[in-house]
Structure formats: structure tokens, C-alpha cells
């Protein structure tokens, strides 16, 4: 199984201890990230999708108590059990930014405002590999070209504030990819962007993955984005995995009532489906505790957010 999977998550449970009691963020989550594939984790706020990706990066706060296992099977080296690495283990450093790297939601704050773009991207190379400054700089230039920047040499001498949101997100993707990570985690990378920019970034992520043949874990709340970018889909709700499968299967023939409910909630769902099927989907959602009952579930989630 390790031949095809880059990461396998087994029975991952994460609890946050607070003074007001403990809150379960993930309950017995298990799924695999296959090699050479974009896996999207989709869910609403409080579903635990970001906790999952942060667990892979070991970015959870100290108040988190984890059980279960996350195993990374890098190419050409021994498997690493991420959950059992000690905080000072050198493998953790090679993991973050080396084997696995991350693109965050906010393109405004992820770049240092006082350093040139080129320096920041080259810095990412120098952090993980022993190459000369010139080599790092030229590597940075070719990476920035790959993410679709033009006039790269000139742009590398500019500062982040001179860039638009979309260009910044391209730079961040370049920084994430420059050490050839085997897994790229994108945590809502397009949520803060305008729709036209979002489309460009989605196309970029998809084409880069096809070119680099790496694995991508794509976290989003938007089923439209999922349909356009993912090969596989993991549907999460309230800290649990409800459904895992191929993108076409999940979106065209969803099995779990919650997935049906999400699809029916999509704006414009009416035009694509008949009125009856929307009714059916809503009914399916209601069977799960949708409709007004969902508002109560939402209430519980909100309190958890608040406590966290």
C-alpha cells in the first residue's frame, strides 16, 4: 500500500484541552494521500479540515492531544511516522518546507514586507540545501517563471507591496515548490482572492501538479473549486470523514446525505438539477440532521470555535 500512497492517516483523533473542558476537533480520521494526485478535503468551518493539514505539518498548539498515526512514505527513503517524531527531531525540519510545504490563505501576510521577492524565494532554497547564492537565485528565477511570472529578473528585485494579490499568491506557491516537496498542502489558497484571480491560480496549481508529478492536499470549502482542481475528494463534517472517493463519483453520485446536502446548498444548484432532485437532496440532508436541525449543529460548532 505504501507503494501508491505518499501519506496515510490512520485513526487520527485530536482533542484540544481548554479550561472549560476538552473539545474534540478530529474523531478517528483515516484516509490516504496517493502519489501524483490532487486530493481535496472539503468541509465547512469547524469540520476539522485545517486541523488535519496542521497535524501533517505538526503545527498544532500545545493544548492539542493527538492519538492515531500519520505516516509519510517519501520516495527513496524510509517511512516517517509524523505523529511520533520528537519536537527536536531533525527529520521534523526536513519535513517542514522540505518533504512537505504549505500555501496559506492570506497572500498579504505570508510574505515579509521588507525583503525583495527574489531574496525571499532564494532564501527558501538556502534554508534546505547547500548551494551558492547565485545558484539559489537562478533556481528562484526559474521557479517564478514556472508559476507564470513574466520579466522575472526585474520582478525579483521588487517588494511584495508592489505585487497584486494574485501575483503574491504565485510567489508563495513558487516558494512552497522550490524545494521540490513531495507533498504540497494548500489551505484555502484562493479564498481571499477575486474570482478571476482564483481561476488563474486553480489552473496554475493543476498544471504544476501535472508537470511536477507531486501530491497536493487541497483544503477548501467550495465544491466548485473541488470539481475544478481535485482528482480525489475527502468530505469532512464535524471532525469526521464522511466520504472519500474519486471527484466524479463524489460530485456526480454522492453517497453520503451530507454531501448531497452540500451540493444542494451550492448557489445555482437549482439550475443544474431538477426541483425534485433538490428536494430529494435536502430531504437527505434533513435525515442527517439538516435543515433547521443543522442550525443547532452549527451552534455547537460555533461554541467550539469560540472556545478554541
Amino acid at each position, binding site marked *: 500500500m505504501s507503494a501508491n500512497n505518499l501519506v496515510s492517516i490512520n485513526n487520527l483523533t485530536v482533542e484540544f484541552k481548554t479550561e472549560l473542558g476538552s473539545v474534540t476537533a478530529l474523531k478517528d480520521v483515516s484516509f490516504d494521500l496517493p502519489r501524483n494526485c490532487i486530493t481535496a478535503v472539503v468541509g465547512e468551518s469547524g469540520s476539522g479540515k485545517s486541523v488535519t493539514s496542521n497535524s501533517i505539518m505538526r503545527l498544532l498548539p500545545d493544548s492539542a492531544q493527538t492519538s492515531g498515526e500519520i505516516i509519510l512514505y517519501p520516495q527513496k527513503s524510509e517511512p516517517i511516522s509524523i505523529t511520533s517524531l520528537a519536537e527536536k527531531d531533525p527529520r521534523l525540519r526536513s519535513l517542514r518546507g522540505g518533504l512537505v510545504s504549505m500555501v496559506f490563505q492570506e497572500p498579504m501576510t505570508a510574505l515579509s514586507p521588507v525583503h525583495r521577492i527574489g531574496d525571499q524565494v532564494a532564501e527558501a532554497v538556502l534554508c534546505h540545501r547547500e548551494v551558492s547564492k547565485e545558484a539559489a537565485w537562478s533556481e528562484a528565477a526559474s521557479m517564478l517563471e514556472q508559476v507564470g511570472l513574466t520579466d522575472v529578473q526585474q520582478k525579483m528585485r521588487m517588494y511584495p507591496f508592489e505585487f497584486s494579490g494574485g501575483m503574491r499568491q504565485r510567489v508563495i506557491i513558487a516558494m512552497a515548490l522550490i524545494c521540490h516537496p513531495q507533498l504540497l498542502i494548500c489551505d484555502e489558497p484562493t479564498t481571499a482572492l477575486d474570482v478571476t484571480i482564483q481561476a488563474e491560480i486553480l489552473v496554475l496549481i493543476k498544471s504544476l501538479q501535472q508537470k511536477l508529478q507531486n501530491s497536493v492536499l487541497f483544503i477548501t*470549502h467550495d465544491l*466548485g473549486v473541488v*470539481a475544478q482542481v481535485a482528482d480525489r475528494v475527502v468530505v469532512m463534517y464535524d471532525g469526521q470523514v464522511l466520504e472519500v472517493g474519486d471527484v466524479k463519483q463524489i460530485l456526480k453520485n454522492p453517497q453520503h446525505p451530507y454531501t448531497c446536502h452540500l451540493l444542494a446548498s451550492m*448557489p*445555482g444548484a437549482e439550475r443544474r438539477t431538477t426541483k425534485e432532485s433538490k428536494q430529494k437532496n435536502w430531504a437527505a440532508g434533513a435525515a442527517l440532521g439538516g435543515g433547521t436541525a*443543522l442550525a443547532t449543529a452549527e451552534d455547537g460548532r*460555533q461554541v467550539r470555535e*469560540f472556545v478554541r
Partner: protein
Amino acid sequence: MTQLLSVKNLCKSFGDQLIVNSVSFDVNESSTLGIVGESGSGKTTLVRSILRAIDPDSGSVRYNGEAGWQNLHELSAKELLPLRREVQMIFQDPFASLNPRMTVQTILEEPLVIHDLGDKAWRKQRVMEMLEKVQLDPSSAARFPHAFSGGQRQRIGIARALILEPRLVVCDESVSALDVSVQSQILDLLKALQSELGLTYLFVAHDLRVVREFCDEVLVMYSGNVVEQGPVEEVFNSPDHDYTRLLLSAIPSPDPDEKLDPLDRATLNLQLA
């Protein structure tokens, strides 16, 4: 159909930056006008100046209220007060738009107190009615906003906007901060309230899918200008302006077979007239 609102040549600039450039449109009663555009297109400035939360540089906003046609920007604060009952707003951020130090009862009652309507018992009853209308539990009245989820807070915001029985409601990105299943519930609620109360909505949004589902007419804004306006289906099915085409091509479809293929900006004519 009666016209409710008529905006003519509205302009607003901050410093030397032109945010809203000569915008004109009309809104019919009991209809929904969507205003779409990307960040920085001036849509929020536009609606805030319609509400007189911002004073525009030039142009007129005329409103056909109980007292007949009036230019909102020519009214004194005192003359404006009765119109405040007729024009209300639902905000984007369900966290920031409710005073965290007031109970839901106080928040919902405040508009009634300001307009000196009814006595204490009547106001209390009215708050209960409104809570029921937005499908919240009556016990919510005694709680503070922090006790509610985003969707529930948005319902409180809607109740506050509707408690004065307005005719025109401005929704400024009112559902964009919500989860998709909550969003569809809130949209359904707004629709139901519209047909029940005959409301007119000015619906500002950046999500074209929501606009297409929710609005009758649409106004496409691009860097302060209206580049296209018309009935929703017409604009979405046969867009006239290249910018509208670009926007539409960028919508990610939830059908994996409909591949996303955004138009290339370089090949488009995005010049403004």
C-alpha cells in the same frame, strides 16, 4: 411596476482616486438588484452612499417613499429620520455588526426605541415576532451575540433590519462570510421574507453564482464603473462586455466535466468607455 429608487450619475472619490464613477440605475419595487464586482470595484462605496453613510461628491439618489420622491442627499438629519425606517441594511460580518455588550433583545428593540414606537410590552412582543420570522428560538432574546453561530447572528442582523418594516433593504455581502449550507438557508429566508413583506433588495456580492440564483437584475461594476446591467439571465447568458465574460468564465463549476477555462485578460478589451 413602481420605481422605488433612482440613482443618477453618482460619483465619489477619496483623495484623487475615483471610487465610483458616474453610476446610474433604477430599482423597481419588490425586485432584487444584484451588484457584482471584484474587490475595489466600488460596490460597497456605492451602496453606502445610497444609505448616506458616505456623502457622495455629485449625483443624486432619489427614493420614492411614503412621502413621494425625495432626494436623499438634500434631506436634513431630521427629515431623514422617517426614511431610515424605510431603508435598512444587512451587514457582511455577522460578528462585527452586533454590539457585543447588548443582549439580542436590546439590539432588536433599539430601532423601535429610536423611532419611539409602541410601549415596552409591545416592543417585547415585536422582538419575539421577529425572532420567529427569522427562525430563532424565543429564548435567544436574553442572550448576548457571542452565544450565536455566524448564521444565527446573521439572522439577528436580518431581524434588526426588518423590525422597522422597511421597503428597501441593502444586503452588503450579507452571505459571503457564511458556510455554503448556512448561506443557502439565509438566502431562502431572505427570499421568503421578500415574498411575504414585498421587500426590495439591493444585493451586493462578489459571488456570481449567488447573484444568479438570488437576483432579478444585475449591475456589473469594474473599477468604479458600471460596465453592464440588465436582467440576470440575459447578462449571464449573453454578456455584452468583455469584463462580464471574464468574470463568468472564472466561475468554478461544481461539475468536474465542465472544465474551468478562464479567458485571458490580455485578449480582452477591458477599456472603460
